[in-house]
């Protein structure tokens, strides 16, 4: 496990997201109203909409392009839409966000 400090929790707006660039593609780091953080692929499987720009509600995000909704725990698309985004281990320690990046190194951008 390689936990890497990517920034302060407060760098991500409440009910919002920020982007992390990696060789395996962009990752969106979300912060909910309850101060939980989640990390998931930034690209919507539908038309590659940037999920970090979506509206965060509860533990879900809505894609800004065509309103697909994903559960940030599982990455599963909700409702009638079918698809899944990759989710990544992330945790908060002393106000910092730690992302587990071993899965993201040594992998070419798919």
């Amino acid at each position, binding site marked *: 496990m390689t936990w890497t400090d990517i920034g302060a929790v407060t760098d991500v*707006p409440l009910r919002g997201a920020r982007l992390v660039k990696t060789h395996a593609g962009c990752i969106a780091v979300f912060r909910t109203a309850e101060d939980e953080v989640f990390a998931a692929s930034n690209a919507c499987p539908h038309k590659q909409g940037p999920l970090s720009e979506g509206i965060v509600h509860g533990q879900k995000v*809505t894609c800004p392009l065509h309103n697909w909704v994903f559960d940030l725990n599982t990455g599963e698309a909700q409702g009638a839409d079918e698809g899944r985004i990759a989710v990544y281990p992330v945790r908060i320690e002393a106000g910092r966000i730690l992302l587990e990046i071993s899965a993201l190194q040594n992998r070419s951008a798919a």
Partner: protein
Amino acid sequence: MKQKLVVIGAGMASGRVLEHLRERAPDQYDITLFNAEPRGNYNRIMLSPVLSGEKTYAEIVTHDDDWYAQNEISCRFGEHVVGIDREAKTVTGQNGTVGYDKLLIATGSAPFIIPVPGKDLPGVISYRDLDDTNAMVEASAKGGKAVVIGGGLLGLEAAAGLALRGMEVTVLHLMGHLMERQLDEAAGYLLKKDLEKRGITVLTKAATKAILGEDHVEAVLLEDGTVLDADLVVMAVGIRPETRLANDAHLDVARGIEVNAQMMTSDPDVLAVGECVELDGQLFGLVAPLYDQAKVVAATLTGEEAAFVPKELSTKLKVTGCDLFSAGDFAEGEGREDVVFRDPSRGVYKRLVIEGDRLVGAVMYGDTADSNWFFGLIKNGTDIAEMRETLIFGPAYQGGGQADPLSAVAALPPEAEICGCNGICKSTIVNAIEGGATDLGAVKATTKASASCGTCTGLVEQLLQVTLGDGFEMPTAQPVCGCTDLSHEDVRRLIKSQELKSQEAVWQELGWKTVNGCHTCRPAVNFYLLADWPLDYTDDPQSRFVNERNHANIQKDGTYSVMPRMWGGMTTPQELVAIAQAAEKYGATVKVTGGQRIDLLGVKKEDLPAIWADLNAAGMVSGHAYTKGLRTVKTCVGSDWCRFGTQDSTGLGIKLEKRLWGSWTPHKVKLGVSGCPRNCAEATCKDIGIVCVDSGYQIGVGGAAGMDVKEVERLVDVPTEEEAIEWTVAFVQLYRENAKYLDRAYKWLAKVGLDWVQEVLADPAERAALVDRFDLSQSVYQTDPWAERARPEVAQSFQPLADFTLEAAE
């Protein structure tokens, strides 16, 4: 031979250790007890009732002098320990040294003092011990104003106590809602409301910049420049473990003194207990785990096996009349689900967090009667699959049942205004229904409610249903989304009549079924709140679609388009040069739009603040081409150049654009001003289109050239430019205040009727009031969003949080 035990600190944890020790092995140790406070152990948790006057100090003493004497404990109270010598096994106090075989450190915690200027002024106190409490009681005797910094458990208890003692209290809290570690936003909102009912002012997102005063505190200055007068400042922002002695003695110390499960520090002859310890990275601030630790300490000291295992914790606030409870955790995890219950009429909110078939967290406000039952389910990890359906109703309620979707309307007070057009309140309508008006038409006919613009129709129908019960068949109204059963029109009316001024107020009072809405309702509610309460509500960017949050239009490849404003379609060579330079610098594609402006396409998100700064420097502001707000005012050259022009259409267009820009509207608003009926500005297919004629100005509204093509309908003809502007502004405000979110003007007009709009606007007083309200809103919202976001500290948020592609390339 008796061993020697020295205890540093006479607090609740060490007090409990001493009790256990004397029970288990009364003769094993000679005990010396140091305490910096000049007194023995008292129930620190009950300081709040002492502060509020509900209890006295004598009532909260747990160990009095007799107890210490009977248990043969040599007390050195009021004496600070100055050092520990682990090699010599001695502890040195201000009045001399004593040796030990075993040492117990129980130094507790110290208040965290925020490092602002003025923190040491007389009149600034923390809230930890009896001396602090007495100081507050004394200060409050003179009355005056108190500012409590910190809206956590301690701060709120201090605030409530000071308010009971007659002080005017303001609580400052850095975060968005009170007690954010124990409560979610919804419960935090209810708590704030209850405190405000007691006359306590609560300011959230309030950062203290300095405490002001000469030789005594006089005021508190906030980061936003607000100055609050204060005769007393209570600092209650948090605590940190008191580890100085342990540090000096070179014990292992992280945030707290590190101990193992036997409560031993890195030196096996030195134990520690209470708020000063850290176990596996965890600190302990509530009394339950401290008592568990005390048991383990006593066992370890008497040579028995025991281990401390942290358990689930619950929190209750000791403010009489504020019933809240929280337990477990709401942190992220796969497959967690919320069950939310709200009863607006009783001010009740309950939220359960379920993972798999287990309850893992609970927050309750207003009704905490079942909290112990829920806490038991969390602690025991009970399988709740069988009772999941009815779980939130508590142990007594296993018969199923639905929350009443009509409860929000039923809960309205009789004087609540239902029909804003005609000023009809709830009781009038209910009286009419009870008097025989049993359908919508009859209510309209007898009360005039919903007889004008019709946006309160849904509410009137709900009143019919509440009053008549099954005797009334409800027509199906389209709810906003799955989060509520209310329609847009209902939500708008209720925001106005119940004076709901925050998202939390809407979620709670209108019984929302989700924690904080969804992508459908949240942007709508955000707009309704800012349109109705421009001074009270702050626009929430996180409730906006991407374009309005980033102030640029996202394109299908994730880049953005940038469009500066060109007032009335007029520009200058200097502006064109600046646009050309910006296009080259940021690699943008240039497109001339139908709204008489220039669009720069393909700009990367990271570059947005920079291109905005460049365009700002040339005197240009955002064109808001991305908003549900004022877009463009298209004009022809008018009487300035055109041989047919009857009026200065360009000049009027520029005046209108300068007046209206920056305003948020239910949907986009496009204007056109043509200088003659040849209509070169295509004004008659705009939301508002003005056609100049010799005798004045023809104002048309409700045009569109999108999915539907609509020609404007004539609102009014006016003789002067001044009146044309007044009518236009008043129309925009009427639309802002009444339309459903995402209804273009023509759709709204189809619902309320042009007749109604004309009737309202024909009244000069009403027109003036609408214009005033519009201008008030503009005083907040007519600012250039680009300039705000081009500032370096804000621009940073447009960059990636981290970039691992750069690192690996090196």
